[in-house]
């Protein structure tokens, strides 16, 4: 079949009218009959696939929810309320319960460290004592009271005229 035949037919007036009218009818049918909703299609797909439909939250819904939240928060009278409307402002408050804030826990001290330290100190004191061995005569001399001092002597007697150690002078 020649292409010219089709072109000639298409350009004839009666065929043009048929084509135009069929287009009008076609568009009318399309607009008059709305297809089923997409949700029903997805339900059918999920039923056939045997999986539940995922709950998809659109980002736009999230933004809208945030905006609504901000608007509600903005209009809520947190600070604007007059002071006299505040509840129990001048009321007496009774404390009905005593509250314990801090609880101390008994902690075991590590004894070993302390014992070691004490032992070390005792040893060092003994060593010091060994280094400073003084003969008894010198020690006696050392224990002579200082006349200028007001402190008591090592023997325990206080420095005074009446208890001056005359016996030591006699022995010398």
């Amino acid at each position, binding site marked *: *079949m020649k*292409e010219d*035949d*089709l072109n000639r*037919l*298409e350009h*004839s*007036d*009666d*065929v043009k*009218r*048929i*084509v135009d*009218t*069929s*287009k*009008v*009818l*076609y*568009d009318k*049918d*399309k*607009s008059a*009959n*709305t*297809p*089923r909703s*997409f949700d*029903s*299609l*997805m339900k*059918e*797909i999920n039923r*056939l696939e045997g999986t539940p439909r*995922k709950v*998809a939250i659109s*980002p*736009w819904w999230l933004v809208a929810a945030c905006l609504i939240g901000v608007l509600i928060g903005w209009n809520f009278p947190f600070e604007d309320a007059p002071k006299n409307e505040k509840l129990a402002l001048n009321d007496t408050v009774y404390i009905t319960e005593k509250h314990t804030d801090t609880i101390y826990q008994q902690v075991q001290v590590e004894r070993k460290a302390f014992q070691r330290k004490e032992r070390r100190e005792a040893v060092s004191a003994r060593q010091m004592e060994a280094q400073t061995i003084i003969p008894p005569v010198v020690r006696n001399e050392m224990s002579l009271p200082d006349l200028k001092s007001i402190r008591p002597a090592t023997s325990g007697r206080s420095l005074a005229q009446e208890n001056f150690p005359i016996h030591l002078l006699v022995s010398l």
Partner: protein
Amino acid sequence: MRIFHSYRQDTDEELMRRVSRSDTTAFEEIYTRYAKRMQGFFIRMLGYDIAKAEDFTQELFLKVYESRSAYEEGRTFSSWAFSMAYNLCKNEYRHREVVETHELELNYDSDSTEEPAFEKIYDQAVFENQLSISLTKLPADQLAAFTLRYNEELSVSEIARILDCPEGTVKSRLHYALRSLSQSLSMYNPIKP
């Protein structure tokens, strides 16, 4: 990943690529674009049976979703979808009873031989009604070619891909369809003497 991605700017093929990755939103966009077109096609192809056309539209999109991974990249979505729609119609025709078709043909013959009243001849509403009847009487392949070419305004090459036949066959089907319609509506057409 773009969170606020607008699917409206995407082409059908880009959307199908997303659908093949089970993107439901892209599939919804495809449905929004094509559901009405497909339903219109089914209404025409199934003899103005609206309920059946709705069922077929749903079945078609079920098939689109099921065979999303088989979608060939590079092929236009419209021709792919229309070829599936046409195959659904062909299956339906096979299931139809031969007697019913025969009865319709008889009715068609009696209608066409009936002389219309003179005042009704130029009535556009009557012409539209007769055109609808005449369209239902066309063979399925001619009706499909006619609808896709003059109502969906697809090219002959696209129709050839949809109907799975050579372009020459499409042209001859169109020629026969136009000639048949022109003849059956000649007495309702005021332009033709």
